[in-house]
């Protein structure tokens, strides 16, 4: 009997290795992992240097781990097990009863003095852009919006970091630095009087806001702009818009991180003007269909936040041909996208830049060239002090990354 047990174990062990090896070698090549939203490691090329210092085999292990047989299934099993074990954090997501929040790891709160240094660096950077815009008579405003973690901070279990102390210090320091320089700054949380768990404002399953949150952000931005610039443009009220909730399943970024194994019931919606405004659209110079919503082909198709404006685009221009209205330049990270879906309705032309992808010219050169009457930058609190890319460019003394 012992010999039989030894034989069976040995066969199972060797068979497992052989099966895993065969399946790994036979696996069709993939370059990206949809659920992880990242590129998979490429097969490393051996060189005298990388073989000599051991890097080649380290890279090869990374490649094999990324391309192991049944990896996606194994990721599902691992995620499912972690969820079943009720771990507080699974795949860097905090599953709460109501929502899926980002895990904010061990407090990396920078001391207030450092926050002030970064806030001043950012404010100096924005002041430069502000001076460029006001130099030809335009209006510039920097807008801070709460991301999901901040809008829903009270939903975190008490023992997990919610970064509230740090975020409050960041917002306060930037508000003060901007006020000192006379650069318009809009804090959307304060402007909307958001409470500790603004369910209507932030998505349950994604880092971004809901369409309602985006609409309210659009409204307060344009009200402030109109009040401070003296410009005249329509600000659409709810009565001017029709809301449509899409029947499609919505896959938020947090659900995606959990391989769609922990759903929180949420649908995406869109706002359409009751009175149609015809327009043309170009993306990076190429003509695109005149739409701001990337609607799915069927009601069964999964929709993502990319619904709004078709996701992050380097350079989009929407022209409504209403020359009596001012021109808007809006730039920022993906929080701009659903706001852009509404903002074009209030302007003659709307130029949208995402400086993470746009490389044709610097922001200030673009502004000098176009001279838009209104320039708006939207950042979420996590990126509020970050100068690179949509912060407007590099600064000699750095800033928060």
């Amino acid at each position, binding site marked *: 009997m012992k010999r039989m*047990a030894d034989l069976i174990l040995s066969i199972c062990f*060797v068979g497992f290795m052989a099966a895993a*090896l065969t399946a790994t070698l036979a696996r069709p090549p993939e370059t990206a992992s949809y659920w992880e939203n990242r590129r998979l490691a490429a097969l490393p090329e051996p060189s005298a240097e990388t073989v000599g*210092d051991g890097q080649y085999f380290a890279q090869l292990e990374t490649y094999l781990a990324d391309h192991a047989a049944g990896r996606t299934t194994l*990721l599902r099993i691992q995620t499912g097990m972690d969820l079943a074990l009720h771990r*507080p954090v699974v795949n860097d997501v905090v599953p709460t009863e109501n929502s899926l929040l980002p895990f904010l790891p061990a*407090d990396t709160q920078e001391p207030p003095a450092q926050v002030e240094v970064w806030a001043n660096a950012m404010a100096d950077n924005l002041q430069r852009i502000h001076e460029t815009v006001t130099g030809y008579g335009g209006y510039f405003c920097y807008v801070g919006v709460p991301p999901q973690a901040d809008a829903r901070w009270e939903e975190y279990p008490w023992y997990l970091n919610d970064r509230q102390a740090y975020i409050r210090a960041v917002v306060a320091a930037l508000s003060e630095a901007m006020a000192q320089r006379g650069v318009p700054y809009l804090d959307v949380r304060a402007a909307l009087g958001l409470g500790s768990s603004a369910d209507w404002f932030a998505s349950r399953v994604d880092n971004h806001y809901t369409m309602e949150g985006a609409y309210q952000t659009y409204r307060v931005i344009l009200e402030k702009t109109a009040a401070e610039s003296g410009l005249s443009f329509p600000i659409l009220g709810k009565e001017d818009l029709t809301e449509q909730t899409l029947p499609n399943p919505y896959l938020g970024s947090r659900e995606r991180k959990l391989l769609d194994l922990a759903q929180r019931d949420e649908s995406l919606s869109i706002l359409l003007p009751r009175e149609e405004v015809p327009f043309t659209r170009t993306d990076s110079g190429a003509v695109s269909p005149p739409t701001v919503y990337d609607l799915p082909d069927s009601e069964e198709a999964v929709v993502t936040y990319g619904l709004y404006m078709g996701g992050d685009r380097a350079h989009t221009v929407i022209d409504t041909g209403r020359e009596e209205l001012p021109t808007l330049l809006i730039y920022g990270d993906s929080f701009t996208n659903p706001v852009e879906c509404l903002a074009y309705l209030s302007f003659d032309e709307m130029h949208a830049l995402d400086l993470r992808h746009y490389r044709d010219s610097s922001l200030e050169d673009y502004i000098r060239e176009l001279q838009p009457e209104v320039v708006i930058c939207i950042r979420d609190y996590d990126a509020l002090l970050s100068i690179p890319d949509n912060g407007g460019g590099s600064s000699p003394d750095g800033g928060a990354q």
Partner: protein
Amino acid sequence: MTFSSLEFLLFFLPALFLCYFCVPRRFLPVRNLVLLAFSLFFYACGGTAFLPVLLSSIAVNYVCGLLAAPERSLAVRRLGLWGSGVFGIGMLAVFKYTGFLVRNLNALGAGLPVPEIVLPIGISFFTFQGLSYVIDVYRGEAQCQRNPFYVALYVALFPQLVAGPIVRYTTVEGELAQRGGGDTLSDFSQGTVRFLFGLGKKMLLANAMGEIADAVFAQSPGTMAASLAWLGAAAYTFQIYFDFSAYSDMAIGLGRMFGFHFLENFQYPYIAQSVTEFWRRWHISLSTWFRDYVYIPLGGSRCSTGRNLLNLGAVWLLTGLWHGAEWTFVLWGGWFFLLLAGERLLWGKGLARLPRILRHGYTLLAVVVSWVLFRSPDAAFAGSYLGAMAGLGGRAADGQTVYFLLEYGPEWIACAAAALPVKRWLEDRLPETGPAGGLRLWGPRLAALVLLALSYLKLATGSFNPFIYFQF
């Protein structure tokens, strides 16, 4: 390449099995050549640039072994002994301690450039193996090996090459030339079970505890809650045990698959009731190496108390430095020197009269403190961290502690259970016949296969996989 990697499990090991077991058992020299070739390839995977270091160590120890053989004159034998010693210690000094020495000289104002020397993988282990071989030959405790391939195989045998255990030549002397005469299937099966238990310990326990320890030790201890500091220290205590003992389990298991029977390196050290007992259970191959090749030649304990303390101090200074060229390792060695000397001369008898739970508590406290010294990047951090454990961080408890307990709840429970001799307890109590006999027979094998599946799951889905003992 580590044992807990897909490269090893899916490519290296199957290829080795194929090449090794296709050679009939009667052609053992050919099998040995296969093992040697794969062992050298295994080492080269960590960087071919280091291969000459290993090969020169093999060559020097082979020649020195020939010189140290009993049939030579005393002068020649001493030449062999000293040649091996100077070469081995010299290699360690150059690769491991030059930077440390220069940094300390610079601290005294020397102003020397600090050389950037990359430490060859496993140099501390294969150097000590080579030294033990020549010393044993010199002492007449081992026969001089005239076949250079066997010396090469002994030094470079891949299971213990990069992270131990430090296998004495006498342990495998016979098996190099003759093994597999018994039941190879039984050896293979038992080796597989041992290997898979080690793999599971590494992938499921050590890595999880490592995530906690890394997260805690990355924070500033100056403002750390006492609860978190203790949790981080406990996590590292588990991590280093399950990491290192897992590697030993895998090494012993792999050796067994190919017919080698290495000695145990760990015997449930965290159940020890004194620090002296702890060191009889922890990294046994290292402590016995220092005992046999340093402590006893210096005079051991059969001398005056002062001399004995000096001997003990020398051994622990060297043990500390062996683990790393940093003052924290010297402090770590010094801490154990104080405890062991104290137990021998001051409180050992009193300790033995205490209730068992207090003896355990004392030992665990001493060991946990030692691991804080071991894990800290410098002495100042270690002091600050120990201060946080004493409550000087300003807070008694915080939310992070609760998070780490809840997030890794199953792993904490498994670690506590796996640190206890449950297996031995079951073996002692389960009868060999009847249903319990079936459980004895199939239980470990089924558990090993489950651990293989879970480990593969972790390998394919995770990227957190560093081995601690690769740095030595």
